[in-house]
């Protein structure tokens, strides 16, 4: 690439076959590798897995700091490397009834990891998936980093250890059977929970479990099935809890029967992280019907190191009586942490923030409004050989988003007699256990954390807020409590995706028909990574391909940010404002790419248009990854790219690589008045995504049915991100107080047509899926909308800066009272206003 620009040209990319040779390969013809595991002393057969030096992702030669580290070493690598040392602590047990149990040190919040684990075990052992029971492990501190559920890393990290453990178990059963059957082990096979001899006799696992048990724990070697021998992996499998879920029998935390754990709710301050100065009517509220206790508690989210806040908790016979008592409290509140801050003041501070520190040679300070300086030359340069270079320079604004799941923050806690027992659907139970021990002043060994199945997580349960609340209340009142956040708390005291801006400067040569440079600078309110990636990154620092002086957030950014296209010289930068916990922030089913990629793809569309190229072919010509090319071609061919559409209807397409996978999303948006102005009381109508085609390559798909579900969910999240899913910050708190205020995708927004193509295996290992589609879907829908209306939106969601489309609920008292007209108000609630069109 000729030219004079301040950015060092990116080193040439290595061909994909070389780059990924350590992680992927042809699905057939693999040589069998031997894996080491443990046979564990136990009454029935128990085996563990250990990963050896035959590492699947052994350290590649890592480059010096350069843009797009994520292409070489990404977040998935970090998460996998962090679990590797403890993988041998994961065990598979054959029970005396012949079934197989596995206690998985991960959260199951709908993503399907227990079903996937059962499939892996059934595959290796030659049994039915239904004979495998997968439960969730209590907090196990010895697992270190191997008990967290984040970064779409669960399947990536358990894939080999679980199969090794299952293969060892099968081997031991066969050995035990060989002795009894008087046959050679290699003549035996396993099927349907039995070991079969060539002569036709068989023994059920149930009769072998004890015989196969080990008296001492010892190392053992096993081989794994080859990819081309798989019978279960790769075939759609329904969720292990689908029947329980549709019959109401599935038990979430608040459904557990813990004696005397009475409902508990919290009166929270009117502004973010405020504090209680005094409670003025304690006796009166303690005397209300059903109320057993009212106590003030600390609500510090980061014990010992963050900002302080407090609140008042009410324990009562029913949650309804908690709500009434919370609202009856007369509390004098102190100031909050961000009083006076609003969307406008935050935007001002983001724009005024200094240049990122992690880029080479920052350019001269931008003369326009004191904004972030960009590195590449401004308009008007002439490059040797390509003539005049033109520039696209664009800022995008992304407002706050909530990561609230349908099941609110919940925990049951029983803190008595120097012990604590806590139930909470934590994504990080070991951290939860550590924090509980700290705030309760107990040894960690006296704190038990059970992990029930969660009703969604999306990053919210990477924080222990509800468990800490519940434990603090239980300790104070000396009784068990069943604590639930009210939905209003979820909006106003919950975790948010930080507001951020993304600035893009792209230069291109119309004469040469080429993009010359692409620079993207992301500036965000600080994201709180302390409980999720903090210690993990510190522990892996020696392996990370960049200097230690980067902030945690910059590290995470470099591990995730990507530009899948060859766009000339590429420079990326990340900067943030505020302390890590000024706002309670976190991920929202994805980290940076849900903003970073839409900003990027909207400019890529502009580049394609200015260079006179088809937007899909422009991308296809510039992706260097064969898998990315293939998924783009799949949506092009099966999604009807480029077909004639009426005015006001348009398509958008993007491709995205993350979590060792590649996904293309083709979205079609209808902005015609007949669609956009349809009336459903209280609904967000407006432009409708009417058709979505997704093609996804995760290397080796384990459960295509579950993988499709993850893609569908990611699309729904992306739709909300583009149109209406946001929180409005005004004077120190968010205006939204429930669903309907916070406008996540509903049935009336969901695309009537959605098609997910699961690409055939492109490797011998699975990638991650939970977050993969979010950034891509957000970007594709944004691009389609821009095309349909002929104007590129630059602020997201597009409805955010319109009038606030709901009546703001009171901050004092803090909870919206439950209506009384539920027998008359169905399906619309009594308070439903007119429909809201975010694009009008």
């Amino acid at each position, binding site marked *: 690439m000729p030219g004079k620009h301040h950015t060092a040209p990116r080193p040439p990319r290595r061909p994909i076959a070389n780059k990924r040779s350590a992680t992927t390969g042809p699905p057939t013809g693999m040589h069998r590798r031997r894996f080491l595991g443990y046979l564990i002393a136990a009454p029935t057969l128990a085996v563990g897995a250990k990963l050896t030096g035959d590492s699947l992702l052994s350290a590649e030669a890592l480059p010096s700091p350069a843009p797009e580290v994520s292409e070489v070493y990404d977040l998935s690598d970090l998460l996998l490397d962090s679990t590797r040392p403890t993988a041998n602590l994961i065990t598979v047990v054959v029970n005396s009834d012949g079934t197989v149990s596995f206690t998985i040190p991960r959260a199951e919040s*709908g993503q399907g990891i227990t079903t996937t684990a059962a499939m892996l075990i059934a595959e290796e052992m030659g049994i039915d998936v239904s004979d495998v029971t997968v439960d969730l492990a209590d907090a196990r501190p010895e697992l270190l980093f191997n008990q967290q559920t984040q970064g779409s890393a669960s399947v990536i990290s358990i894939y080999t250890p679980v199969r090794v453990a299952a293969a060892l178990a099968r081997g031991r059963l066969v050995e035990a059977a060989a002795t009894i059957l008087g046959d050679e082990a290699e003549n035996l096979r396993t099927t349907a929970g039995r070991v079969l001899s060539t002569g036709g006799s068989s023994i059920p696992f149930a009769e072998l479990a004890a015989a196969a048990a080990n008296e001492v724990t010892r190392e053992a070697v096993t081989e794994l099935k080859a990819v081309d021998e798989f019978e279960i992996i790769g075939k759609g499998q329904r969720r292990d809890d689908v029947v329980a879920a549709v019959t109401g029998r599935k038990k*979430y935390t608040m459904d557990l029967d813990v004696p005397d754990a009475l409902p508990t709710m919290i009166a929270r301050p009117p502004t973010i992280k405020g504090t209680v100065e005094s409670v003025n009517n304690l006796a009166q509220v303690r005397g209300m019907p059903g109320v057993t206790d009212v106590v003030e508690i600390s609500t510090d989210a980061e014990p010992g190191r963050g900002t302080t806040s407090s609140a008042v908790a009410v324990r009562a016979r029913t949650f*309804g*009586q908690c709500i009434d008592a919370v609202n009856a409290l007369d509390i004098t509140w102190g100031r909050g942490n961000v009083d006076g801050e609003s969307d406008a003041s935050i935007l001002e501070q983001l724009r005024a923030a200094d240049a990122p520190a992690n880029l080479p040679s920052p350019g001269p300070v931008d003369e326009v409004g004191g904004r972030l300086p960009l590195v590449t030359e401004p308009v008007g340069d002439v490059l040797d050989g390509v003539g005049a270079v033109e520039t696209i320079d664009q800022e995008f604004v992304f407002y706050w988003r909530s990561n609230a799941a349908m099941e609110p923050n919940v925990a049951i806690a029983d803190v008595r007699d120097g012990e604590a027992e806590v139930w909470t659907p934590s994504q990080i139970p070991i951290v939860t256990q550590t924090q509980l021990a700290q705030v309760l002043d107990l040894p960690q060994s006296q704190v038990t954390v059970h992990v029930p199945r969660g009703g969604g997580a999306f990053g919210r349960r990477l924080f222990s807020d509800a468990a800490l609340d519940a434990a603090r209340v239980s300790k104070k009142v000396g009784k068990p409590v069943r604590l639930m956040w009210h939905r209003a708390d979820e909006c106003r005291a919950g975790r948010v995706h930080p507001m951020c801006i993304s600035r893009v400067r792209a230069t291109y040569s119309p004469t040469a028909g080429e993009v010359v440079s692409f620079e993207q600078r992301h500036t965000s309110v600080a994201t709180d990574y302390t409980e999720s990636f903090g210690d993990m990154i510190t522990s892996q620092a020696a392996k990370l391909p960049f200097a230690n002086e980067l902030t945690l957030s910059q590290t995470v950014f470099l591990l995730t940010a990507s530009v899948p296209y060859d766009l000339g010289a590429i420079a990326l930068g990340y900067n943030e404002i505020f302390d890590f916990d000024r706002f309670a922030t976190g991920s929202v089913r994805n980290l940076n790419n849900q903003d970073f990629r839409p900003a990027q793809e909207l400019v890529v569309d502009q580049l394609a248009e200015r260079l006179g190229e088809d937007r899909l072919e422009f991308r296809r010509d510039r992706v260097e990854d064969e898998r990315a090319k293939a998924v783009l071609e799949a949506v092009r061919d099966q999604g009807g790219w480029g077909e004639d559409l009426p005015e006001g209807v348009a398509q958008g397409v993007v491709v995205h690589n993350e979590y060792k996978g590649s996904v293309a999303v083709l979205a079609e948006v209808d902005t015609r008045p007949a669609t956009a102005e349809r009336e459903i009381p209280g609904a967000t109508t407006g432009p409708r995504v009417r058709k979505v085609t997704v093609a996804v390559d995760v290397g080796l798909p384990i459960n295509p049915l579950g993988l499709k579900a993850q893609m569908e969910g990611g699309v729904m999240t992306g739709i909300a991100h583009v149109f209406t899913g946001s929180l409005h910050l005004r004077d120190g708190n968010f205006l939204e107080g429930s669903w309907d205020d916070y406008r996540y995708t509903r049935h009336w927004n969901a695309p009537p047509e959605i098609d997910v193509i699961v690409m055939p295996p492109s490797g011998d290992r699975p990638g991650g899926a939970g977050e993969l589609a979010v950034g891509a879907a957000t970007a594709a829908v944004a691009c389609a909308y821009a095309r349909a209306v002929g104007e590129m939106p630059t602020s997201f969601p597009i409805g955010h800066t319109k009038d606030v489309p709901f009546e703001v609920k009171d901050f004092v008292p803090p909870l919206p009272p439950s209506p009384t007209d539920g027998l008359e108000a*169905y399906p619309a609630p009594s308070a439903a206003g007119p429909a809201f069109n975010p694009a009008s």
Partner: protein
Amino acid sequence: MPPRTLSVNGRQVTVDVEDDVRLLWVLRDLLKINGPKYGCGINVCKACTSHINGRAFNPCSVPVGRIRPTDEITTIEGLPDTVGADLHPMQEAWIDRDVPQCGYCQPGQIMAAVDLVRKVKAEGGSVTDDDIDEIRNMCACGTYARIREAIKQGAENM
């Protein structure tokens, strides 16, 4: 407060509770009928959708004092009994399509779907995409596409 008699899922139950406590909490906290879920408490998310005398409603917004002893409350747990089977056809369709992800909203989604199909059938029609568009039940996992297909499939067997 005098003991109150309710008819829930075909059984008579007696409970001591103040009149103004919303039915959702009587079901969940006192009767331990946990199928109806809390999602908002103000009748906007519809996670608690159940049936009263065969029609959908949201117990989070009904004081228990408004329920008469003769009113028949049906939660997801009692839905199969309304067709005298182990599973209602709508539940069968949900399983067949592997609809749930986290599953938290699904009891409410199913109860809303059954109500919708009953309503359109009573009006002599069949369920359309426009009808499904008006279901308010919120799902944060984003299972809407499978719900849409499952409702159509379940309706065929109702």
